């Protein structure tokens, strides 16, 4: 086969599990397998593993262990926060107004949309600036009308920009609106200190910070009584039923600890590689534009629009050369639609079909960046050449 070299530049989509995390998880498959709710010795060992993990997560989040709810993924955490808040408002006899932004992850957008349809909730999308950050004055105006919840993404998955969460959370609090942050992309890279941020809820997913897929966290501030969206046993203080996935919960805690213990070194490396990637791409690909904020963005995250270059075709060329990348508009069925996020940022529909996201991670090297840039430049030339041949 012609393509031998494989270069993974899609760490924002998922990361490999750190071997140290795997080691930490291993005992909880075959040795400690009891149901954490059972009263016997196996159950007690499982319970203590889960509770220890909860304490470790709470230390990173600067919160009480009881405020940490384990879930099955980031999407479930988002669902619990938003659905729970909407139901809570209804239970209190209040209008369940929902505030969000147009550049949220689909777990947030589609949950809000469904609640709008099924529960007749009023939904408000606060505009964002050209970098994808929520406009604070518009957010304040939205909160003035009161709401069951405001859910805002911490760092954007598509363009990497970081919202000023502390500012937005303070505005929400001032108007007595519950504030949820989707921190799935931010986990492992930005501070998760919920006191400093002032958030009421915060979602995380382990597989974005070198933990396993299929486990997440919702931080839920003490005193906020959300109806469970997963009913059953009394797990997680009645907030999320379902037998604990002990091994994965242990893995999440271990991965989170490692990410923050090694953050300064890791993030400096990510930033260096990302800058090299961005500078190289912008200088070598005519017409390319960086999307999102140039500095105030996730260290690992680079995103662009390459006008005239259909994202589907570009990803195919990259993959044929062993490079894993992604795009907000590419689609496995060959039916690229303009990225909703890029449209919300003000890009024209034909440009919003040409997004490219490259994200670096633990195994990325400078040589890989050089290789990826060479492949990218060649692929863009080829695609542009084909387009010229078919310009009718």
């Amino acid at each position, binding site marked *: *086969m*012609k393509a031998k070299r494989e270069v993974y530049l899609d760490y924002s989509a998922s990361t490999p599990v750190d071997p140290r995390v795997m080691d930490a998880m291993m005992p909880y498959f075959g040795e400690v397998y009891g149901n954490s709710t059972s009263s016997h010795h196996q159950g007690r060992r499982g319970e203590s593993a889960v509770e220890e993990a909860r304490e470790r997560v709470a230390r990173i989040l600067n919160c009480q262990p009881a405020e940490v709810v384990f879930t099955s993924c980031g999407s479930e955490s988002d669902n619990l926060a938003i659905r729970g808040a909407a139901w809570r408002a209804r239970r209190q006899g209040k209008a369940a107004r929902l505030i969000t932004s147009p550049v949220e992850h689909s777990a947030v957008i589609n949950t809000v949309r469904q609640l709008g349809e099924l529960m007749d909730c009023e939904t408000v999308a606060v505009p964002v600036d050209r970098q994808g950050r929520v406009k604070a004055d518009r957010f304040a105006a939205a909160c003035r009308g009161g709401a069951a919840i405001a859910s805002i993404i911490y760092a954007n998955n598509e363009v990497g920009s970081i919202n000023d969460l502390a500012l937005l959370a303070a505005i929400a609090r001032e108007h007595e609106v519950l504030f949820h942050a989707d921190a799935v992309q931010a986990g492992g890279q930005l501070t998760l200190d919920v006191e400093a941020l002032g958030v009421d809820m915060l979602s995380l997913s382990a597989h974005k910070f070198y933990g396993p897929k299929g486990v997440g966290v919702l931080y839920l501030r003490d005193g906020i009584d959300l109806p469970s969206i997963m009913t059953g046993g009394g797990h997680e203080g009645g907030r999320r039923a379902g037998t604990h996935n002990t091994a994965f919960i242990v893995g999440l805690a271990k991965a989170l600890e490692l990410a923050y213990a090694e953050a300064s070194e890791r993030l400096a490396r990510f930033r260096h590689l990302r800058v090299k990637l961005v500078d190289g791409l912008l200088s070598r690909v005519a017409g390319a534009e960086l999307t999102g904020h140039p500095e105030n963005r996730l260290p690992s995250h680079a995103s662009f629009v390459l006008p005239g270059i*259909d994202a*589907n*075709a570009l990803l*195919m*060329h990259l*993959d*044929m050369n062993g490079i894993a990348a992604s795009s907000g508009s590419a*689609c*496995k*069925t*060959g*039916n*690229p639609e303009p990225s909703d996020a890029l449209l919300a940022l003000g890009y024209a529909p034909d440009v919003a079909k040409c997004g490219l996201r490259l994200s670096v991670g633990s195994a990325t090297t400078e040589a890989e960046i050089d290789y990826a840039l060479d492949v990218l430049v060649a692929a863009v030339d*080829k*695609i542009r*050449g*084909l387009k010229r*041949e*078919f310009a*009718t």
Partner: protein
Amino acid sequence: MNAGETRVVVAMSGGVDSSVAAALLAREGYDVVGMMMRLWSDEALGGAEHNRCCTPDQMRIARSVADKLGIPFYALDSKGVFRDIVVEYFIDQHRAGYTPNPCLECNRKIRFDWLLRQALALDADYLATGHYARVARRRQGGWLLKKGLDPGKDQSYVLSVMGQDQLKRTLFPVGDYPKSEVRRFARELGLDAANRKDSQDLCFLGNNDYREFLRAHAPDLMTPGPIVTSAGEVLGEHRGLSNYTIGQRKGLGISYSEPLYVLALNPIRNALVVGKRDELGRDRLVAERFNWVSGALPAGSFRAEVKIRYRAQPQKALVQPLEGSRVRVEFDAPQRDITPGQAAVVYQGEICLGGGVIAKFDDEQESLEPKDQAVQFIA
């Protein structure tokens, strides 16, 4: 060339033939890449949400076949180019009073041009499809297009638009096998598409009839006009020329002393010309935009077999190359349904020499330079 270093892009549809084509190449050890074109369909028209060739189901099947074979698979957005070229051609041809075969136009400009270029840009050495046809090397150099081994499945008719540049970059892996063998391969490979029925409808119509499609996209084609005999006698009113095709007898809505058939569509007068059965047969035609597979214009006229529809049997004829990519065909016996817009494809035995689009009958009154010298094409 070493198979492992030879990259082949396979146009996969989720159907048996292209799936087996991919499997045969993968088994040979080629560096195989699956590709599927996302084609245009008329989403506005009810029931045609997806192009028949690339429904989500077809795509899922193709993707799972690729996974099974361990090859990459990509779907390419071809909606715009397909709509601009094939669908426009279909409408324009109807507007001009032809009965077009858009599959040939698709092969000419999409599959063996647009897609072939996409493949070559991906550093592929070949594009492969699941067509029943064969490519053979000519002794004197160059490439021949031959019928598929299975006479019941031969698809060289729709490939008659190909030239040397395409053939040298094309593989038809299933063309060397009978369909029964291909189905057996499919079962061995566990391809669940093995028994799907082939559809005859145009891919972009979805579940709609082509007349409904035209009614929506070219309502002007549905303008009523006179039904006339070849002598000029007006017999009634038709419902728009595109509702009719040459040789059609049913649904004319006129009563006459004997059965009448559609003889011609005259878009200039918006007239439907009808006549008796014995007026229907013609023994000659002129084909335009004629493509010679060899790339060379034959020196003179020659004996050959000519196929005038995809499903028709080849008929013996004298073929005379004319000026300006035109070809005159004189059949040994009159043919009933020579239809302007369909392709006339010329064969000598197994070899497809080329094809063109059947012109309006008026164009036949051409002064012809006699070219009697017979030319034989031998592999």
